């Protein structure tokens, strides 16, 4: 399987962001998401992007390396911006692109400076009071870790499927790309579910 850097990997380090508690980082991420959605206009997005770039730089990840590792997601953001520029207005395009890129960078800072295990503990602690309402914090935390894991796995499946389609001379066929990709992704989800079940994860 191809290695996809940054998307799910914790990078050990000693920066202040590495030392910050996982709960504080998750809360900050949540707050940033709410702010860029609630406050409209390109200025908020530009401000969020500036903060995100500053955090990437101070996390010790290396700004250039981070942007290179995320280039396909950033390209997607630019395509979204181009769509809004052509269909709506430059202001909306700028807002959408800066909001999206800022959140991608912030999420990358959180996942690379925080062990997933620490994030799970923070989620379990935060949701603890909701146990009486029927919420099962360990299950929510497990679902969170599976979402993080699914990003690089799905991208790897997409890349392998594209390679297989090209090898059969079907590189330009959307059906040859999408159908096996969806089937393999669903199959992988089923096998992962079985493995979790077998390990007794989610029983509590």
């Amino acid at each position, binding site marked *: 399987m*191809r*290695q996809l850097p940054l998307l*799910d990997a914790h990078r050990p380090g000693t920066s202040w962001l590495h030392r910050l508690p996982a709960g504080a980082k998750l809360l900050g991420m949540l707050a940033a998401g709410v702010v860029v959605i609630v406050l409209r206009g390109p200025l908020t997005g530009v401000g969020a992007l500036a903060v995100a770039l500053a955090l990437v730089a101070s996390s010790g990840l290396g700004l250039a390396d981070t942007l290179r590792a995320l280039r396909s997601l950033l390209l997607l953001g630019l395509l979204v911006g181009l769509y809004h520029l052509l269909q709506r207005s430059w202001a909306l395009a700028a807002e959408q692109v800066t909001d999206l890129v800022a959140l991608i960078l912030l999420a990358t800072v959180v996942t690379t400076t925080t062990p997933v295990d620490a994030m*799970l503990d923070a989620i379990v602690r935060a949701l603890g009071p909701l146990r009486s309402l029927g919420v099962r914090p360990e299950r929510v935390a497990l679902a969170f870790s599976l979402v993080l*894991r699914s990003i690089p796995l799905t991208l790897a499946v997409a890349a392998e499927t594209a390679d297989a389609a090209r090898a059969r001379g079907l590189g330009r066929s959307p059906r040859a790309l999408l159908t096996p990709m969806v089937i393999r992704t669903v199959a992988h989800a089923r096998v992962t579910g079985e493995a979790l079940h*077998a390990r*007794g994860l989610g*029983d509590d």
Partner: protein
Amino acid sequence: MTRLELDRVAVRAPGPDGDVVILQETTLDLTQRRIALVGPNGSGKSTLARLLNGLVAPSSGAVRVDGLDVAREGKEVRRRVGFVFTDPSAQLVMPTVLEDVALSLRRTHRDRTARLATARAVLARFGLDPLADRSVHTLSGGQRQLLALAGVLATDPAVLVADEPTTLLDLANSRMIGDLLLGLPQQLVLVTHDLDLAARCDRALVVSGGRVAFDGPAEAAVAHYRATA
């Protein structure tokens, strides 16, 4: 040893022309330390193994582990019976080696420091401690299977069911995992196509066409399978 019982267990699955029998009515009492299941592809041996952990529910009959009904007391059974799959990638859930073993320990170790310390000790037992902070995606096939085993054995189950754990491995890794499995203190139920490995068990069952075609000492079972395959 743990007592693994199949009491008139059958497994059927819906097919286009009615139910298809995956496993015919089978009664077994498994108490040996190392038990092998051999047989051709599609014979029902994986289904039989999956019954022991509750991954497959019987269509009729009952499966019991030390008297616990797998269908009714699945949670307790899964604490006693660990399961290792052919492809370890599906079993590795967390991004790094250490975190994946720690995930297994979340139920028993609430404190993170103690949990990580125990996970490191488990990794050391399997010689994986130098890889603790490595991404699971960068491991070799042998290292992944070893990690999957470590993740399951971290909680110290009484029984380990391994479904073709060496099939995807090269010769050296296949031998390493095979030797490790047979040397475990746990009771082992091993589904395998490696007949040399199967012959080293205490008891072997030849599964063919959805039924147990031979059940006896491992060497005799392997000889039977070689003669009839």
